[in-house]
């Protein structure tokens, strides 16, 4: 069922945790709330779950207004940060709990618990206690418990934080597959931008109690509308400058930057975003419209790629990321002076004053 938030405001004393949030999660969609800690995303989650109530605004699930409803009448399945499995109950009893609360008859309860456990590939583990399971298995139990009662909405509160990297990737894909298969409307809360890009249908980036941008992962990454989003999502080179008339900008300590986009008012201050992978280094830089010379300050080997930190003559620092193949040596060495460049198409302009 779809979820709609309208003008949601929540204050704690003098602090405004949510400063008017509008949001719509379509039926079957996985929408991610991405933001740093303190951005209000946890308050938002609690308001949707019913653990907190907004000072202003409304929360609707489908056609029902649930703004002031207690959690139990919302039919929202939630996976907590630390799973919050009940340690004194077996896995099957944990998964059965929401069904018992809904007075589902025993036979049907058993059938649905078995189904849910099979869905997360834990059919054999019903009689175990949570502490006898690994972190990944515990998370699957939490997931089974959250979906067993066919919730109207699934809430995921940073559910992968406690897992190691390998397992996290496996679980992310598994959650994604399950969510698609069951067509669950899902609100996913995280501060991990990489995770958000992997999982989401759409991403809403939150900052200081507001949604800064909401859009497809590719859009949020390639075309951020605010400096905060550009900085928070992915790695970035942000150049502060002033727009000139004919598809160009003046950046102090760098010079003139040619832009593909135009139409903005000349004289407007703007942030130019160049992603590290868009920077060309060495021979590749020849012939590009925007060029400079940089000294390699640091190289970080990342397996698939190498990250270069470079100091330009003017004192600016830029980050570049070059793809690597296992057979090739690193193309550059620290301390080397290299030509760098980027094409006008790879510069994204965030004009200030625009939101």
């Amino acid at each position, binding site marked *: 069922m779809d979820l709609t938030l309208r003008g949601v405001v929540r204050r704690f004393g003098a602090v405004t945790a949510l400063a008017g949030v509008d949001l719509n999660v379509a039926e079957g969609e996985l929408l991610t709330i991405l933001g740093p800690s303190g951005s209000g995303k946890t308050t938002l989650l609690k308001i949707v779950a019913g653990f907190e109530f907004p000072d202003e605004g409304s929360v609707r699930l489908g056609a029902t207004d649930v703004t002031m409803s207690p*959690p139990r009448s919302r*039919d929202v399945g939630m996976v907590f940060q*630390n799973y*919050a499995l009940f*340690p*004194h109950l077996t896995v099957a009893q944990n998964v059965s*709990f929401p069904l018992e609360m809904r007075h589902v008859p025993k036979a049907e309860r058993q059938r649905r618990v078995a189904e849910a456990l099979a869905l997360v590939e834990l059919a054999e583990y019903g009689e175990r*206690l949570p502490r*006898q399971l690994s972190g990944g298995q515990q998370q699957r139990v939490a997931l089974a418990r959250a979906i067993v009662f066919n919730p109207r909405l699934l809430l995921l509160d940073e559910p992968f934080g406690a897992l190691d990297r390998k397992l996290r990737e496996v679980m992310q894909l598994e959650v994604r597959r399950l969510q698609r298969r069951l067509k669950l409307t899902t609100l996913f809360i995280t501060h991990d931008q990489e995770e958000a890009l992997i999982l989401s249908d759409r991403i809403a980036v939150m900052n200081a109690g507001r949604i800064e941008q909401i859009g497809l992962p590719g859009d949020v990454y390639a075309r951020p509308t605010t400096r905060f989003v550009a900085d928070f999502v992915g790695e970035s080179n942000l150049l502060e400058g002033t727009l000139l008339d004919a598809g160009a900008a003046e950046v102090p300590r760098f010079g003139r930057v040619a832009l593909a986009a135009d139409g903005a008012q000349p004289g407007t201050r703007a942030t130019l975003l160049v992603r590290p992978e868009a920077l060309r280094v060495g021979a590749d830089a020849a012939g590009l419209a925007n060029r400079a010379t940089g000294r390699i300050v640091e190289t970080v080997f990342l397996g698939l790629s190498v990250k270069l930190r470079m100091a330009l003559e003017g004192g600016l620092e830029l980050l570049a990321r070059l793809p690597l193949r296992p057979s090739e040596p690193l193309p550059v060495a620290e301390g080397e002076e290299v030509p760098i460049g980027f094409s006008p198409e790879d510069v994204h302009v965030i004009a200030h004053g625009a939101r």
Partner: protein
Amino acid sequence: MPRARRPAQPGRVVLTIVASLVFAFLMLPLVVVFPISVSSAAYLQFPPPGFSWQWYERFLDDPTWVESAIRSFKVALLCTALSMGLGVPLSFALVRSRLWGMRLADKLVAAPIIVPNIILSIAIYSLFSRLQLIGAWYGIAVAHTILALPFVVILVSAGLRTFDEAQEQAAMGLGASWGVAVWRITLPQLRPSLIAAGFLAFVTSFDELVIAMFLSGASMTLPKKMFDNIMLEIDPTIAAVSVMQIVLACICLGAAALFGRGVVPGAATK
């Protein structure tokens, strides 16, 4: 397999000796009481001259002893029920409420432990005499609840403070009302604290003499009866009663250890 023995450290030796002495000091009364309770002599004599069960028989044959024992049971059970019934909700209020003054209230809970029992007894006596509760067993239970309540609150709120409140939220998110969440999720996980609290409340009442002296009138509790026995006719019956009390306490402790084993961490894993 041969294993290298660690050389005995002097600190460890001293610790063992001190621990043994403390243990002996604690156990010594038992060593004296049990032989006296099976003494063949008609007075308190140690070591006893011969063996007999006569003092246990005397206890069971004397209706005033048995009645006072039963009365003490009733008083202790009611006191346990009352102090748990009041103490558990009070603990929730003290730990969870963010109301002004809760921190102060938290400290004040221990007050009945600090006030001398005799002062408490006099105060309760004057109140209960107006209410005509002197001599009523449930009156004593109510008075004992004042003594037992702090122990219950201290133990249960300590357990509650270490309990992860997200568990309760999770239960409510899954469809439980707050009451159901507490009953099904919180309280079962507090079981060790609850059992310890209940045991302490029971023992506090079962052993209590001063309040019982003021309030029991003619219908005596077991400690009062024991006290009177010492005052009037010292014979080894009191030793027999003591042994039975000790055995009862051991059974309770054993049961508490069995059922109250840490439900959350450290329980046996298959």
